[in-house]
């Protein structure tokens, strides 16, 4: 990560701590609506990689606040697909947190005289979950790269946004189910932090296009490419 993006993330973390107590106002005050606005127009000239990094943090720290909408408001009327793209970044952050909480929990909670993480059944479940989280992280990074290549033109990144949102949607079921299963009853309480990421994940799956919506769109785009054309399109868009 570049030093500039590192600094941006530090700022975001600090601002989101305030926002967790006070609502969206501190995020507005910090100027996040200027993140994507060009420097020439008085903005920060950030790219989608920056948006992705900030939203991954927001997905953990303030999943209930409209941070994505605020950032996109700087673009004026942002394309619907950009809102879907922003949702994927939030989801990636929240899934990473669900995995982190789960690892921490199974390494501390003891049953049968051992940490839960020593049981093979638990290990295998968490491996499955980790694969889903890594997949979403990879998808979101590739989507960000495409958006930056095409200057945030959502139409030119339609394949990547559809694929990333669909992949993230499909990971939600696995990630939330396993995270809750390995936590046991404590994860089902209001006091414990897990629901602060799992409930938003459930919500985001249906927001800005559910699985059926994106699968239809992507499927029709792919049949347009044709069998051989899919590979040619996939490589041409990324080279």
């Amino acid at each position, binding site marked *: 990560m570049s030093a500039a993006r590192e600094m941006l993330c530090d700022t975001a973390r600090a601002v989101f701590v305030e926002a967790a107590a006070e609502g969206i106002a501190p995020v507005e005050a910090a100027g996040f609506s200027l993140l994507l606005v060009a420097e020439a127009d008085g903005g920060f000239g950030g790219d989608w990689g920056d948006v992705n*990094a900030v939203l*991954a*943090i927001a997905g*953990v720290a303030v999943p209930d606040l409209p941070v994505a909408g605020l950032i996109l408001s700087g673009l004026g009327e942002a394309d619907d697909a950009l809102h879907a793209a922003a949702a994927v970044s939030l989801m990636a952050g929240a899934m*990473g*947190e669900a*995995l*982190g*909480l789960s*690892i*921490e929990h*199974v*390494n501390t909670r003891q049953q049968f005289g051992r940490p839960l*993480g*020593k049981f093979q059944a*638990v*290990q*295998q479940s968490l*491996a*499955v979950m*980790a*694969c889903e989280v*890594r*997949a*979403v*992280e*990879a*998808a979101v*990074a590739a989507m960000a790269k495409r958006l930056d290549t095409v200057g945030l033109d959502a139409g030119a990144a339609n*394949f*990547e946004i*559809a*694929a*990333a949102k669909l*992949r993230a949607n*499909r990971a939600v079921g696995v990630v939330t189910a396993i995270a809750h299963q390995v936590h046991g009853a404590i994860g089902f309480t209001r006091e414990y*932090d897990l629901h*602060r990421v799992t409930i938003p994940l459930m919500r985001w799956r249906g927001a800005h296009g559910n*699985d*059926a919506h*994106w*699968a*239809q*769109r*992507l*499927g*029709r785009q*792919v*049949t*347009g*490419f*044709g*069998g*051989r054309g*899919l*590979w040619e399109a*996939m*490589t*041409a868009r990324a*080279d």
Partner: protein
Amino acid sequence: MHGCRDMQGFALYPFDPPGDISALRADLRGWLAQHQPQGDVVERANCWASFDAGFSRALGAAGYIGMTLPARYGGGERHPLERYVVIEELLAAGAPVGAHWIADRQTGPLILRYGSEEQRQRYLPGIAKGKLYACIGLSEPGAGSDLAAVRTSARETAEGWRINGQKIWTTGAHLSHVILALVRTEEGSERNAGLSQLLVDLDTPGITIRPIIDMAGNHDFNEVFFDDVLVPHGALIGTRGEGWKQVTAELGLERSGPERYLSSHALFAALIDAAGSDPEPALAVLIGELAAEMWTLRQLSMSTAAKLAAGEDPMVEASVVKELGNAFEQDMPRRVQAVIDCGWDDENDLARLLRALLIASPSFSLRGGTREVIRGIIARGLGLR
């Protein structure tokens, strides 16, 4: 909150091969249009098991094998990520790369890394020409997932190493020139201590290769028996007693490649073509889902390759690619069967590909380490064991 964990994920390595990658793809596609055999479509699925020595020699002559090896051994001195681009193109096209596959992917790099100068000169040029093929001698009847239970022994004598024992499930042994065997060189040693790797010419007296026919009716894998086989001292590769460490590195090469998600691509392509330009909704949904998964797997696989190319050890990432890729490829024929209307015995391309891959698919989560073993490696990477 427990603080932000956004930094804990794997860093995604940027996939930035040097040179003109579009030109590399275009050249290879042009070459394939001239040279890829237009044989049976079923050969194009699971194509890294399709053995075609003529094709391998032509591919080698065109410079697409041993691409990363030094020129003095007949290699192309290309960047590992250029090689990655070439193999993903070959797999996506369903080219019959099975003959040279193992030698190019793992045996060659291993000889370069651990081999003596004599071994390099003896084997690498043939590998790069697409003429010298290798097989993997790890599994034994008593050593499957538990590879450290290997019992095949090699004793050092004045004349050389004397090998006794048996390997099993050895893919392509009957078509290969050499076997890279993991053997116990220290008498009385246990588990992963006392193991070494020997590179053995398969025409050495005392070696017997017996076919095992798989459930698809194919002869791909074999039993390999060693009955007092004498090989020169120079057959030892790398360091005596370090076999376990060397094999672990070899498995990293074996697990991380694009073959883990691209070997059933022929079926996906046939499905897309059969769906036509105005697919019914259930078919469009399935194609969309498969495309999203495949695209994501490609990102993971490229990032893992980039990490490997940067000289780091992507053991866990490679396992993630293998786990997700195997699941993708194993589920694909089942999901296709669930939505398309086609009889088991139909003779069109889609039906035949479907049948072949339904039958082949149980092996995907066995070969190269079982699903359970792979998940165990991932769990260790998460700090759970």
